[in-house]
């Protein structure tokens, strides 16, 4: 790491952040499920890189194994990759109400809360916003953005797999913010590690649930009827 010049490191960081945001977006808005899952695997790999970048090699390794490999595997398992019953390739369910701008309202306010809190953390004495943003760093900002996206996705989507994806993205966003605001503390890493494990198990559980629900009565969303008609 040390061999890289500082500017390059900063540029790398920004690029990583932008890529993360892009992948998260791709993963969340894509209605083609397999593509979305692939985007998520990419997102997870990028997360691993980010941990490396943040000087947390252990986390990077764990993220690569748990986040990219195992979670990706579980997602594809849920899709029915290579099995007899496959999920439909495209999510055709309408979004949950409220739709449009209003569907953004709550995630935005929530995001605002998180952002405000993060800013407040570094902004004790009332420095200007731009300085605070600078202090917070691009990864934290992207983390916040990802939180917002993830929340939106979680609230808006009804397809279970997409909600699972949204949860994973949301979790990653929170890890990013956590890493940024708490710094390289061992506690933060422990929390993230736990969170990763939880996310993996959650994904595994979720994937198997989705799979079996689909096999049992073709259900793709929560609610009483098949096909998620609520």
């Amino acid at each position: 790491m040390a061999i890289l010049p500082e500017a390059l490191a900063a540029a790398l960081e920004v690029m990583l952040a932008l890529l993360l945001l892009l992948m998260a977006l791709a993963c969340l808005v894509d209605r083609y499920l397999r593509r979305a899952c692939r985007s998520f695997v990419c997102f997870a790999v990028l997360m691993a890189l980010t941990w490396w970048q943040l000087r947390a090699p252990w986390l990077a390794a764990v993220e690569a194994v748990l986040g990219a490999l195992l979670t990706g595997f579980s997602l594809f398992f849920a899709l029915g990759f290579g099995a007899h019953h496959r999920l439909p390739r495209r999510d055709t369910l309408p979004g949950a109400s409220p739709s449009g701008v209003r569907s953004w309202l709550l995630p935005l306010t929530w995001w605002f809360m998180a952002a405000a809190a993060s800013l407040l953390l570094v902004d004790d004495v009332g420095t200007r916003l731009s300085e605070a943003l600078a202090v917070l760093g691009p990864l934290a900002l992207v983390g916040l953005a990802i939180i917002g996206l993830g929340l939106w996705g979680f609230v808006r989507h009804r397809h279970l797999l997409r909600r699972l994806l949204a949860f994973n993205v949301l979790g990653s966003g929170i890890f990013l913010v956590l890493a940024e605001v708490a710094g390289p503390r061992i506690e933060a890493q422990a929390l993230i590690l736990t969170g990763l494990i939880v996310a993996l198990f959650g994904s595994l559980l979720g994937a198997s649930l989705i799979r079996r629900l689909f096999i049992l009565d073709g259900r793709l969303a929560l609610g009483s009827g098949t096909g998620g008609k609520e």
Partner: protein
Amino acid sequence: MNALAVLGDEALHLTPSLWAVVWLIVWGPLLLGLVALYFPPHRMLTAAAAYLPVMAATGWLVATIAVSGPRHASLSLGELTLTWYLDGLAILLLLLTQTVLMASAVFAVGYCRTAELPSRPAAWLWPLLGGLSSGLTLIWIAADLLSLYVGLELMGLCAVALMLLPGEAEALAAGMRYLLYALVGSLAWLLGVSLLLGAWGRLDLAGLAAVAEPGAVTTLAVALLSAGLLLKASIFPLHAWLAPVHGAAWIPVSAVHAALVIKASFVILLKLWLLLAPGQMAAAWLLGGLGSLAVLWGGILAWRAQGLKELVAFSTVGQLGYLMLAFPLLIGTSEAVAALAWRGTWLHLAGHALAKAAMFMAVGSLVLSTGRSKLVELAGTSRRLPLPLLVFGLAAVTLMGLPPSAGFTAKWLLLQAAIRGEQWLWIGVLVLGTMLTAAYLFRMFRHSFDEQAPHLTYRRLPLGMDMMALLLALAALALGLVADWPLELLWPWGGRT
């Protein structure tokens, strides 16, 4: 504050023998569960015997701590230090947990056999229950947010996994919903924790209480934490996932879940609020208000419920509402009021845990024996199934808060606190809640005492199942009369200086 003083005192570290006991209690059930995965118990006595060491260890721990006072322990993993703290509250919750778990496990043996559950998923019941137990134990004794997080997640994931076992679509859908909300709740919690960590740089509760100042960040963190925990604790209006889960899960799972799992989130919530938001009276009133609404909402829905399990599930929603009254009664009130409310809350929690587990078991026996699950279809059961009905009745006594039961004594204490604190609203809630509870619980009896109903065919159940339920129900009753000893252990409490 009290907890701090203990943590600073080297002399009050756990002795090695106590350490061993604690480890046994934390991991013993999990190990037993793993063993049972490969050698599932077929007789209830076996299960009871296998669990006996854990129970004995719990008993010994309780006795020791009760005599010698609170103890603490720290566990270092490299640079990371986890702190555990065993005070009266923790050991009592431990005792409660292990009692309910053991009863449920023993009940589950009979249940698996009688309900002829498929053997593979049935075998998985054991390790998952063990994991649940470990998670719960961890939560009760944890004194830092990381341990709490680990415990919470362990418990939550096990609980969701247990939903997978029945394999029916309804159960799976309920489990899926549960999973999603549990995970999102955890994330909200994690966000809150990360804010706290960022702001104050530490995770141990005692340290946080010492350094954290009320401010915007703490406040936001507490709000986020609380939202996550409220969702996990299924407090109105975030309770909607609960009823399907209880309705679809296996009976012993529902019993443990209603008795303990959702309580864990509540316990964490209460602990954190007392530490981090001791002056937030308005917000505490909001929580109390949510609790009141929960009492009404849960009560009314239980009253309208058609299915037996549904009724019990909504009853849980309503009963949790009473617990939420702890916030307005504990936060920003005088010492005397808080002392009463503190005791009342824990007593209610314990009473409800025991009674609700017993009630679920009774419901399980009824449903299993008759093959019917609707209230109306159970008409006329009292002649053939007196014991489950008796258990149901005894549990109902506690839930309604009628004497002699833990529920009654708890209600007495809460009422006393409300009157003394001049918070009249909660009196109305308690009264109305009692009436609603009576209204929905007596529907069961009204149907079961019907002698003009067509006769059903009945399946014989092992006596041990009902005895377990009876044991729990009687414990709930007895707790109302001998509440003094456990309540004295709760005092002095870790809430304030």
